[in-house]
């Protein structure tokens, strides 16, 4: 396969893979209240870098879907919009987390089986 096509394909698949994970990570992080910038910093500190132009619109979308609640509040003499997981969001987050764990465990089992076959 052409290297350019391969790179493009990898980027596309990587984006697809990350998309769902990012939502899960954002929901997980917003069990504690954050505004956009601190949320991005908190995720980056955990090793998950997200572009601002991706994260901030994502917050709006999740709020529109009822998974987050937000409020404008003054902090350090500046108005900021703080987001937090809503009750419905917490419920869906639990289900998504269970789904994620299930997929993760299956993938680990598959990879472990593969590794054992190779070593035999």
């Amino acid at each position, binding site marked *: 396969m052409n290297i350019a096509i391969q790179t493009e394909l990898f980027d596309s698949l990587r984006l697809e893979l990350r998309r769902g994970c990012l939502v899960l990570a954002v929901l997980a992080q917003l069990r504690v209240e954050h*505004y956009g*910038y601190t949320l991005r910093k908190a995720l980056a500190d955990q090793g998950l870098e997200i572009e*601002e132009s991706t994260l*901030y619109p994502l917050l709006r979308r999740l709020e529109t879907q009822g998974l987050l609640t937000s409020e*404008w509040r003054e902090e350090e003499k500046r108005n900021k*919009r703080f987001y937090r997981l809503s009750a419905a969001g917490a419920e869906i987050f639990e289900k998504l987390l269970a789904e994620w764990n299930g997929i993760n465990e299956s993938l680990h089992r598959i990879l472990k089986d593969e590794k054992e076959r190779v070593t035999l």
Partner: protein
Amino acid sequence: MNLLERYLQAVGQYLPVKGKDDTLAELRANLMAEIESREEELGRPLNEAETSSVLAQHGRPVIVASRYLPQQSLIGPGLFPLYWFTLIKSFPLVVLAYTVAQVANLIFGGGSAGIGAAIGHFPYVAFTFWGVVTLGFAVFEFAQGRFFEPIKWSQPWDPRELKDLTPEPKGKSFASRVADLIVSVLMIGWLLAVPNHPYLVLGPGASLNRLSLGLTPDWHVFYWQIIGLLVLMLPVKATALFVAEKWRKGLDLTAQAIGILVLVVLVQARSYLVPLRDGSNMPSLANLAQVNYSVNLGFKIVLAVCVVKFLWDIWEAITGSRRNAAGFVGVF
């Protein structure tokens, strides 16, 4: 900060009025926090180049704004497979309908524009078809969920309700091909006998001289063309008896094409019967013209049917070979 305000103004140009101020206020707060964080790291205010770098990293205004817009699609992923299926399945019917209409126009309407113009006009027809189907699906996409319940593909269904397997069409049998070849040979023999025995065309009345009709002089012009084409058809049909099945379809189509050429020659003749000079029972010229017109019209109708059948068989051959290549067996 002038640069930040200019950036926000540029983003705002692409945002809808509703919620625009709110979005820009949030964006300002986040970008200010980012800038202040950098300033804290450096221990001094950012200069214009450094502020510019923060904004450039955030993204082009049009891209940033587009991510705040509601996710919209003309035809969504739920409806798209149905839309695509409709286009693919309907397109051959559009081609067929257009071909029939154009052939009918050429034959009956005396279409002066010709075949080239008919083919040249087809892209407009195809584009209109695509536009109408796309518009229909876009309207449906817009309306579903707003005016009626959206289609739910996850609803239970029963695979046992799928239609039975379509049996694979059988080709002509060997006996049928032999009979066809014999008939073709007999037809050539019959045609070769016609110049010496006109009654073979005009009936017994010709020999009794009751009819004051004769064949048009044009007959001698196209007669040999027809004989030539029919003779050419014989080796094609004979070869089809002995070759592998995969080549037979091509030979059958070749024979069909030659048959169409025969009809084209006949249609071009326009006049077939003329009054004899010394005939005592000469029919009126008006009646004879009507007879010639009717015979010509008959050939035109047969030609139109044969052309449509020929195009349909070509389509079948193409789609059939694709199915076989893909490993399908008579599923569609």
